């Protein structure tokens, strides 16, 4: 039997205006801008820079489906979810939703540290859309699931962060709507808790008749939870289909092909004396590659520019790598190996050589940071992502293929007799 559509997204677009220099627009700025506005449009232009976070996105979700949304940082996944949750309005388009909706964009929304655990269960439950009677009915289960027991009547400000997260998740996990919108909530807590919450999410998602929209960077979670996956790229919906197919399309699509993505990245800090504008990976023979294998010799290439056109002195370049679940793995600066750049040409490439890439199969995220002198010049969070495929790290002839942890370590075994 064909199920009917419960969510239909029709031509959704969202425009944001970015004010790069001022996060806090004050009344004083507004008043001081008035004279400028009277004579030219210059001020308005500076502040009114617009960009489209979503461009004409349309799709339907059927009853009982679990739809995963994937895409790089800034692809518009979270914005789309926020529009579906009615937190931000779309600029164009219509979404029709049939059913009771609850959204989990973070856990512990509205937790008040002055209130006790008991009081926060009621407050947070109500904020998430539960009725008072419903919370009362589920209260025992929530407390039991959270495992906070005797701390129930203690103010939340005295909870450990672990207890805080457990209580928050316990409330969220007992939501029982027809349609559930979830954003990355699994990426909290320790590994044991993440496993527990993933299991809980699975049971929620598989519940008969419940429709779920799930945004995540965690491909394992997407693969195991979702019945269909939508891929977003720079505000456009590029593909919808079976999880395996879309995930592999997403992963192999990590080509630094068309445009340098880092150049446009808005999530950056620093004075801008040096800007990282592009990143790619080259293999041991200097050929550009879409992915690397564990244990390979490879080069991380960071193309940079100095917007002033002048060379810079005393430059320290660094990058960090974290897993798709944002677990930091390592950090590398030129200063670590005493290789700071004394005189850095106005444009060029920083090249880091891995003699033996220590990463296991998976997807990784990269942050970059450049320090000139004493001050931060450029800091880009989520600058790039890359993929690692199974490789023969130990040179033993076959890939180990471990998926226990994201790292390999070099070493040797021997047996010593007593």
């Amino acid at each position, binding site marked *: 039997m064909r199920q009917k559509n419960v969510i239909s997204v029709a031509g959704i677009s969202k425009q944001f205006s970015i004010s790069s220099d001022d996060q806090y627009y004050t*009344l004083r700025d507004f008043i001081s801008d008035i004279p400028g506005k009277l004579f030219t449009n210059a001020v308005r232009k500076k502040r009114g820079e617009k960009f489209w976070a979503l461009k004409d996105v349309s799709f339907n979700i059927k009853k009982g489906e679990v739809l995963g949304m994937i895409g790089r940082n800034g692809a518009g996944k979270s914005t789309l979810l926020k529009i579906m949750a009615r937190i931000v309005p779309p600029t164009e388009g219509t979404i029709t939703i049939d059913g009771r909706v609850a959204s989990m964009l973070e856990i512990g929304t509205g937790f008040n540290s002055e209130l006790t655990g008991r009081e926060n269960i009621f407050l947070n439950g109500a904020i998430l859309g539960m009725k*008072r009677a419903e919370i009362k009915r589920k209260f025992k289960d929530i407390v039991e699931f959270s495992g906070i027991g005797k701390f129930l009547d203690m103010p939340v400000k005295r909870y450990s962060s672990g207890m805080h997260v457990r209580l928050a998740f316990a409330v969220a996990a007992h939501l029982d709507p027809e349609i559930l919108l979830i954003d990355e909530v699994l990426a909290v807590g320790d590994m044991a808790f993440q496993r527990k919450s993933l299991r809980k999410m699975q049971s929620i998602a598989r519940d008969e008749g419940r429709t779920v929209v799930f945004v995540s960077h965690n491909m394992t979670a997407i693969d195991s939870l979702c019945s269909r996956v939508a891929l977003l790229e720079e505000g456009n919906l590029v593909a919808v289909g079976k999880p395996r197919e879309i995930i592999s399309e997403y992963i192999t699509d990590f080509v630094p092909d068309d445009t340098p993505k880092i150049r446009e990245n808005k999530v950056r800090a620093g004075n801008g004396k040096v800007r990282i504008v592009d990143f790619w990976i080259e293999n041991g023979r200097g050929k550009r590659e879409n992915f690397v294998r564990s244990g390979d010799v490879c080069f991380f290439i960071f193309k940079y520019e100095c917007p002033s056109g002048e060379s810079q002195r005393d430059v320290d370049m660094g990058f960090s790598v974290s897993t798709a679940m944002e677990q930091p793995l390592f950090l590398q600066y030129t200063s670590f190996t005493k290789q700071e750049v004394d005189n850095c040409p106005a444009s060029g490439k920083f090249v880091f050589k891995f003699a033996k890439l220590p990463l296991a199969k998976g997807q990784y995220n990269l942050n970059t940071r450049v320090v000139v002198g004493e001050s931060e010049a450029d800091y880009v969070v989520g600058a790039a992502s890359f993929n690692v495929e199974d490789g023969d790290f130990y040179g033993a002839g076959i890939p180990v293929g471990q998926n226990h942890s994201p790292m390999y370590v070099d070493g040797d075994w021997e047996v010593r007799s007593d």
Partner: protein
Amino acid sequence: MTDRIVIKPQTRPLDINWSEIWESRDLFYYLTWRDIKVRYKQTILGVLWIVLQPLVSMVVFTIIFGNFAKISSDNIPYPIFVFIGLLFWNFFSSALSSASNSLISNENILKKVYFPRIMAPISSTLAHIVDLIPTLVILVGLLVYYRAVPTILSLALLPLLLLMMLVSALGVGMFLAPINAKFRDVRYILPFFIQLLMFATPVIYPTSMFGGTSQWIRMINPVAEAIEISRSGFFGTRPMDWPTFGVSIIFSLGVFVTGLYYFRLKENSFVDIL
């Protein structure tokens, strides 16, 4: 289908979805309850503070303005004269300031969940009703102590006057809340603005000090009108001025609708700014 939600770019400001507000009544209850609870947990003296605060201000104001400055009080004993003024003023100003800050103080929730946005200012003003209870008890004590003979009408009007405070404070608050969310320096100007409003209101001085313009001021300042009606009614100093009261009610409602309209007009774009 009752649970159908249609999400579109722009909603009409006065097209209010009442059933949705009714559906969210439990959240409304918990938001108000949270505001009350947190307020009394944060102050050291807690509940004692709301009893002490009006009493202490009454004593201080009586000493400064009643004894030293010898401000006229229309032959009403100055302590109860200023207490009536403070009762309305404090209720109005605290409701106004909470409503104006309601979007900023609920920022983390507004950014993560949907609920009818109008609940933020309303729930934060309603939380102040609780503060009124001890103040009203003290008022009764003072009326007995000063052997005042209030008219039945003036007592019957008291709830209506308090409602008028709430409605007008909400009106101004709903107007200021989106501005406060957009311009981050407004929150520093606001307490100053409220303080100035107090001097434009006959809290420490009688309405009669305005002379001929008194009537006009009472029409456009609901707090002035409420104070005047209560003072004259409790002590029978002046007869009830119905036309002025009528205009004052209409003015308050006008302020409320204007505030509501502006709030609804801007409510879609809050989260983009916050």
